[in-house]
């Protein structure tokens, strides 16, 4: 199948293509302040999520959605934060994982691939953005996304699909996205993707040396099922603990297999119809 994306610069822009940018979210230094959530809502003029109490730790946001483009997850676990080689742990029997989730801006983006109108497109910065003046709300991108990021906004009869734009209106003018600018601990880092990957590898090594046994990078591998995330993470536990899929795949990668099965079924249908006319009249 034709590939529409390239690694460090997006295809189709020729001279206008710029270095691919993204996020590296280092969850090991996230303090759960939700400044990213607030800054995102402020800059992108998103409505509030409602004053609900979920009783899910400090998370009253719940999940990413059409009006929530950053979501801080809170996970409480009865295990020590770090295991040192010597005496087992740091003495604290409980740890609190926090992670600010966001659209992954996949290299092989399911939402973009299945969009029938061209409303979803790849910008000259390599990010994935919905054009709100084109989306007709068909809903195809919603179940296509392997991360459950994009959603249809039903408020006030809007009916269109919305998600993080990686602050396209800021990044195209060289500004840092609102969430990264607001993050007080540099848990959310913005920059050229290649540079972020290098920084993340170093950070992983240092965190592992400090005794975070479960630390891992998530989405930094260009060989994964979505050919690498534009927004990737350093996690301290398995992805599903954070509500993330452990092995996400862009379903359109298997389109050849699907059309093959459809062609066989279509041929069987045509043969069946022909066979039904073979019998005697009546």
């Amino acid at each position: 199948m034709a590939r529409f994306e390239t690694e460090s610069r997006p295809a189709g822009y020729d001279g206008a293509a710029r270095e691919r940018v993204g996020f590296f979210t280092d969850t090991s230094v996230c303090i759960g302040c939700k400044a990213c959530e607030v800054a995102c809502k402020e800059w992108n003029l998103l409505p509030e999520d409602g004053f609900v109490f979920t009783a899910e730790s400090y998370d009253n946001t719940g999940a990413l959605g059409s009006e929530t483009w950053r979501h801080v997850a809170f996970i409480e676990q009865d295990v020590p934060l770090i295991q040192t080689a010597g005496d087992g742990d740091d003495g604290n029997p409980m740890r609190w994982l926090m992670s600010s989730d966001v659209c992954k801006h996949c290299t092989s983006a399911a939402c973009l691939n299945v969009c029938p109108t061209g409303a979803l497109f790849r910008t000259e910065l390599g990010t994935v953005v919905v054009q709100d003046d084109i989306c007709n709300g068909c809903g195809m991108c919603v179940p296509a996304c392997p991360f459950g990021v994009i959603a249809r906004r039903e408020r006030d009869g809007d009916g269109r699909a919305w998600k993080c734009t990686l602050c396209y209106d800021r990044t195209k003018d060289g500004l840092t996205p609102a969430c990264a600018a607001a993050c007080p601990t540099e848990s959310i880092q913005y920059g050229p993707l290649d540079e972020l990957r290098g920084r993340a590898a170093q950070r992983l090594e240092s965190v592992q040396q400090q005794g975070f046994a479960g630390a891992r990078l998530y989405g930094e591998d260009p060989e994964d099922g979505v050919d690498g995330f534009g927004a990737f993470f350093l996690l301290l536990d398995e992805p599903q603990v954070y509500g993330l899929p452990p092995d996400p795949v862009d379903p359109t990668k298997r389109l050849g297999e699907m059309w093959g099965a459809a062609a066989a079924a279509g041929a069987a249908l045509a043969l069946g119809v022909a066979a039904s006319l073979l019998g005697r009249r009546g």
Partner: protein
Amino acid sequence: MSDHRPDYYGRPVIKQPVWKAEIGWYFFSGGLGGAAATLALVSRLAGRRDLARRATLVSALALSASPPLLIKDLGRPKRFLYMFRVLRPTSPMSLGSWVLGAAGTAAGAAAGSDLLDVAPVAGETARAVAGLLGPAISTYTAVLISDTSVPAWHEARRDLPLVFAAGSAASAGAAVWLAAPAGERGPPRRLAIAGAAGELLAAHRMETALGELGEPYRRGRPGRYARAARRALAGGAALMTAGRRRPLLGRVGAGLILAGTVCERFAILRAGNLSADDPRYTVDPQRERIAGRVTS
């Protein structure tokens, strides 16, 4: 390190499909219309003009119901023409919109030519176009839902097209049988019975191949639809077989087959929602995939 809960407060990993009942009815009308168009073309080639005309009319009616159903389900119905803004090969919904537009127009033109008795050459050409596109209309919807991250659909990607094709044959056969004059009922009856049997077998094969992911097809609302579909298809096929010389039995049988194919489409549609809503269905197969890569 993960001896604690393997999910995030039991919340789904992926979003549920937003499609409403209109899409279930569209799977039915599009499948029926597509297979009827092919039946019309083959009947005409076999020299059975009467049957061809009836099948074309059934096809045109079914395909004319399809666009309104799709438009009604859009978040922005007034923007339905944006479906034809681009042609995206990677988007089954884009390809399907174009094929449905072409096949629906052709079936309508062929039916118009038949009814008004005008432009016979153009009418036959339109019948051929619709008939050739028929199998695509009947099966692309299976690709459309397979091309998602919904476990009960995506993991059934090899089997879903056959379920849709067989269901299309069954419903088209039953509908054309109801519309056909007494002497022309053989082919649609055979098509309806074979299609119903095929759908039962294909759906069974799909559920078996899915293993644990087949659960959403047996549980709750989709499970009830699936069981109703099986009973209606089996009963309908039996009645249509017995009803060769008893039109009343045949009519009941054809009605049951139509109802069965509708139920099967709703079973598939809602099994998708059920499987999307439970993180286990998303996470478990992915973890197994990772484990398989590590050990191999």
